């Protein structure tokens, strides 16, 4: 061995042996993981398609949803009527497209309004804590003991069927899971050490709320809001099935399914198309919600 290779090297603390991969921000990582989940991407694609169909679809059909023509009633799907016709001769495809508008808007609006109410209610309960929290959550606990659908049914009996009333009934009931979630999140986050650390470093309460509490609760809130949409669509379909949904001639998917079910034996396609629409939409939202839930779970970070 040559002597010079034993020469001493200048001692500098070599910090270049840093971690090789670049660190990603939280939301970048979430998006990356969401993208990897093929099912949720599929869900997103389908939902986008459904939304576009709902908005522009009716402009492209030559029929309106109320044109009756008894002579072509109950026709099976054909090149003229892609989904066939219903018992009054109305084009089923058009009705399904209009139904998409109704069902989707019920889902989205219900989800948004329950999110707002739920976040406010839960946020106030969690932030103030103490007596305010106890009273507010007591109320929720009491109301929670009855199944939601039962409430909605009763409300619809009182309010009478109608689109607006469905919005009201759903909003009055479905905010509770969100409120509970938000309150729970805030309570646990408040106790977390890094909030204490932030406080010690002099951060004001407002800053704590905006920079710590909200970003960390956003994930579960988003998931719950996404999963409320199929629940609302389902509830509306259920109500329509027992006659408490929207009123004729406006037809949501639930109403169409209800009408279709009565002629199941003879004209099964009349149930098939609206039912498929409901199922595919709910399925897609559930896939997205699932994907979000997996993507947001820090433990799954490999």
């Amino acid at each position: 061995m040559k002597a010079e290779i034993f020469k001493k090297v200048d001692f500098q603390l070599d910090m270049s042996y840093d971690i090789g991969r670049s660190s990603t921000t939280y939301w970048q990582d979430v998006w990356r993981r969401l993208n990897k989940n093929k099912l949720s991407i599929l869900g997103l694609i389908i939902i986008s398609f459904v939304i576009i169909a709902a908005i522009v679809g009716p402009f492209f059909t030559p029929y309106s949803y109320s044109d009756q023509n008894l002579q072509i009633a109950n026709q099976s799907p054909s090149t003229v009527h892609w989904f066939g016709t219903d018992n009054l001769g109305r084009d089923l495809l058009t009705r399904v497209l209009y139904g998409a508008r109704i069902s989707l808007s019920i889902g989205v609006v219900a989800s948004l309004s329950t999110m707002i109410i739920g976040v406010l209610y839960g946020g106030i309960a969690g932030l103030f804590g103490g007596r305010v929290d106890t009273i507010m959550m007591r109320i929720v606990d009491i109301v929670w003991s009855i199944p939601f659908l039962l409430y909605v049914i009763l409300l619809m009996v009182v309010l009478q069927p109608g689109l607006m009333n469905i919005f009201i009934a759903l909003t009055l009931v479905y905010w509770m899971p969100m409120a509970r979630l938000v309150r729970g999140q805030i309570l646990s986050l408040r106790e977390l050490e890094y909030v204490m650390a932030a406080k010690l470093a002099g951060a004001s309460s407002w800053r704590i709320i905006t920079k710590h509490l909200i970003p960390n609760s956003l994930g579960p809130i988003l998931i719950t809001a996404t999963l409320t949409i199929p629940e609302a669509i389902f509830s509306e379909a259920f109500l329509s099935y027992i006659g408490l949904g929207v009123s004729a001639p406006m037809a949501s998917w639930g109403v169409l399914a209800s009408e279709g079910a009565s002629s199941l034996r003879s004209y099964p396609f009349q149930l098939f198309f609206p039912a498929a629409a409901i199922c595919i939409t709910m399925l897609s939202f559930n896939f997205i919600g699932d994907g979000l839930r997996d993507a947001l779970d820090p433990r799954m970070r490999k």
Partner: protein
Amino acid sequence: MKPILSVENLKVVFNTYAGTVQAVNDVSFTLYKGETIGIVGESGCGKSVTSSAIMGLIPSPPGQIASGRILFEDEDLVTMDDKSLQKIRGNQISMIFQDPMTSLNPVLTVGLQIAESFMLHQKLPKKKAMEKAVEMLKLVGIPAPEIRIRQYPHQMSGGMRQRVMIAMALACQPRILIADEPTTALDVTVQAQIMELIKKLNTEFSTAVILITHDLGIVAGMCSRVLVMYAGRVVESAPVNELYANPQHPYSWGLLKSVPRPDMKSGTLESIAGQPPDLLAPPPGCAFMPRCRFAMEVCKQPPAPIKVTEDHMCRCWLLDKASPHTPDILFKECETA
């Protein structure tokens, strides 16, 4: 005398989405009956992975034993199938873990968890197994064992839970006990009690002990030999007195200097500057080089193990015949710095 365990050139890797992590890189050592050896090093140096490999508990994706042999009773544990390994685990080779609270099943009684070893390996009926469980609790020094066996882990203190773990591990009188940081999660006073217990059981039953820790103080009181690991390799191994009196590796010096001693001259504790290396892309050559005050050009190549004495090995270029420095002098240099 034949060793009861012989680890030869063990290499363990983990295949992650960011690349392959070399967790254990060419580790070898031998263990004799009734012997206690300590494996010390920082977090992430590969000491726990080594012990998991011995037990066959490496999570199989993403980890795998890439090469090497682990000889126990003339059989290679690396190539053994899981069913045969199950017969050895908890029976001939046992392991206790760091955190006794999370390491015990919260919904099963303590007695049942100990009795399980008897029922599993010695095929005892439940009643007899529970009786033996009571005996084990007595052995590890838990008062009122008949009552305790019906209790759940959350009803016990940390020290007691660790005793239960030890009872579970020693139930079938294994030849080897692997203790992975057994006292790290406990209070200092309890630490001493647990180490006393392990020592006692080691002498009484001639159970060999592999003690894994980052605490040099514990090692001094208990082990006959020490292995110092860094970045997946054994950088120095020696009998304990020899290591404390005559350490040869700069990392060992760093470790020893960061432990407070009553005869220290200066009032400050020294820490080893820098970070442990990223095992995804381990640097070529000696892994300790970036943090070593005495680094030389030649350290960019991996050092071979060098025999200091018959049972003292060190991987360091400083010991090479051509090296101009002698570790003893450097060590004194460190001492007075």
